[in-house]
């Protein structure tokens, strides 16, 4: 539901189960106009949170997917020299070749700055980029402005975007970076929370299947030697598969017959381990 009054209060979206603590943190970050850095293992809904904020606040979401090769300037703007060269040679476009500004295209951060209304800017997997990128980017987000060198023009943010940054913590982020963010670590949901999450995705799911599926899921996560543990996304897909299968009976799970392990375990070594260890559950 959209909130017209300011400051906006975030209460969760329809497909996203929000815990109270995180809601407070989001609201504080919005009010303090600070970027919020989210860490946590994959599948804890870091990225989904940004989507949920955007939906519930009726704001547009702009996603910047960070790659290791990404340069900061690419995230801000691009100067399309190739089109300009083309236009100057063949002259068949309506653009004014002598005006460089017509060949400047905004990147994701730039677009968030020039948007007419407040947007949610999601900077996904910041840990993939190098430290310089991170620090420089935070400068820009701090100042809420950047320069376009080619046309000597400063772009100022019309509205301060709500900034959500996620990290899978493969690398430690630098101190200056951390100093400018609020921080939260999303723990893997406990079984009760997980039941609520599944319930939101499958409202008509009967409680018996829900309980057994979630219980089995946590048992599977406890298997020894698994490299990539199944997360929320895998569980949702798995439940979807169980529902579609006409031959499936919830009792099978209790007896340790676990179908579709491949949905949950995506590395071949993990899959084999899980098959072996699920046999043990059967006894």
């Amino acid at each position, binding site marked *: 539901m959209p909130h017209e009054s300011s400051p906006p209060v975030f209460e969760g979206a329809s497909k996203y189960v929000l815990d109270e603590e995180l809601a407070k943190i989001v609201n*504080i970050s919005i009010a*303090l106009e600070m970027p919020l850095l989210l860490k946590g293992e994959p599948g804890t809904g870091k990225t989904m949170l940004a989507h949920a904020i955007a939906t519930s606040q009726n704001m547009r979401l702009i996603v910047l997917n960070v790659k290791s090769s990404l340069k900061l300037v690419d995230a801000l703007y691009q100067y399309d020299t190739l089109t300009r060269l083309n236009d100057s040679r063949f002259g068949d476009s309506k653009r004014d070749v002598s005006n460089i500004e017509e060949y400047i295209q905004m990147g994701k951060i730039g677009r968030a700055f020039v948007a007419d209304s407040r947007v949610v800017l999601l900077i996904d997997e910041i840990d993939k980029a190098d430290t310089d990128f991170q620090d420089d980017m935070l400068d820009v987000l701090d100042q809420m402005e950047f320069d376009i060198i080619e046309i000597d023009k400063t772009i100022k943010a019309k509205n301060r975007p709500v900034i959500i940054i996620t990290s899978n*913590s*493969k690398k430690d982020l630098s101190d200056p970076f951390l*100093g400018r963010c609020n921080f939260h*670590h999303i723990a893997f949901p406990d079984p009760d929370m997980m039941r609520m999450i599944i319930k939101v995705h499958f409202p008509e799911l009967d409680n018996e299947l829900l309980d057994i599926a979630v219980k089995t899921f946590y048992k599977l996560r406890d298997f020894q030697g698994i490299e990539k543990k199944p997360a929320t996304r895998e569980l949702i897909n798995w439940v979807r598969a169980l529902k579609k299968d006409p031959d499936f009976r919830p009792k099978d799970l209790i007896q340790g017959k676990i179908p579709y392990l491949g949905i949950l375990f995506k590395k071949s070594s993990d899959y084999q381990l899980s098959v072996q260890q699920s046999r043990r559950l059967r006894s």
Partner: protein
Amino acid sequence: MFVDFFYILRESGVPVAPTSFLRLHKALALGLVNGLSDFYTAARTILVKSERYFDIYDRVFAHFFQGAELPDFKGVDLEIAAKELLEEWLKHPEEMANALGISKEKMQAMTPEELLKYFLDRLKEQTEAHHGGSRWIGTGGTSPVGHSGYHPGGMRVGGQSLHKSAIKVAMDRRYRDYSLEAPLTQAQMGEALKRLRRMVPVGPKDQINIDDTIRATTRNAGEIEIVFDRSLRDRLKVILLVDNGGWSMDPYIDLVQTLFNYTRSQFKDVKIFYFHNTIYDFVWEDPPRRYKPQRVQDLATWDRQSRLVVVGDASMAPYELMATDGSIHIEERSGLPSIDRLNLLAQTFQRCVWLNPTAYRLWSLTRTIGVISSIFPMFELTLDGLDRAVTHLMSKN
């Protein structure tokens, strides 16, 4: 306001920046914080920047707002508490033998130090399995350890009324698993090991160096000259020797497994060998140590630039290390004591480390740890220790 809180956090080892503290006050001034539980959340998200410090934060918070006892963060309290508990138990040896899952005879044969170490190991297991709850202390209802109200980790919660929810949350210590002292996870290991990588240019010159190309072109008065480079590849060789024998290493199997799963995916050229307790004439390529032996002498002729990483608890009877026929396996008594083999390896591979999963504070209790750490630079197998080990491996470049 809350200046004391700020300083206690800092003294306890949470790196809190003054600007963050001012920001917290801004949040307070804006009226965003209503009540203690809001304060708990707001202060943590603004002041604490890594989940590794969440646990300390929880403890400081509980101390500051509830007067809970602030434990010494060096972990000494665990040992003292354990000692006290052991003394109490020693009055009832049968009960204790039961609790630890060993026979009364075996227990009486152990020295107090060994007993303490064994007990602490069990406690550590308990911490690791805190969420899974699959280990034996605290589950199954057979063990007095879980029932005596003793809380491993040192927070004595007994007898306090927990009526404020934020305090309760802080007392729950949900983030213990993420704290600096907690066992390593795979991702953390990756973080530490990645620094071991050494990129060197190899292969054909097939990558354009744009900066040099521009420079060469301008020097060429605009006539384009393209400069190529070789691509970078990791050429680091790693030899990993793992102690996988004996019950003394049992508690650490998961930890070691994580370590070398990660090592294998991280480095192209990594050789893994196994040994039991210490190294004699052979190490083995197969974990059961039966089919594929490798002569240690031959190992010593390999590339001296290789990084040698030994993982083991370095705990054994002194004669296994010193005696000429020290091996507990009869077929490998060749006349050279193990200590000579270790010296040979340490001299051959100048960049070597020994990673010990035993907690550092217990090292002085075992004599062989002292001996081996004088041969190999020894580090604790924790995030901190691994970090220092990697720094050591790379330092002589």
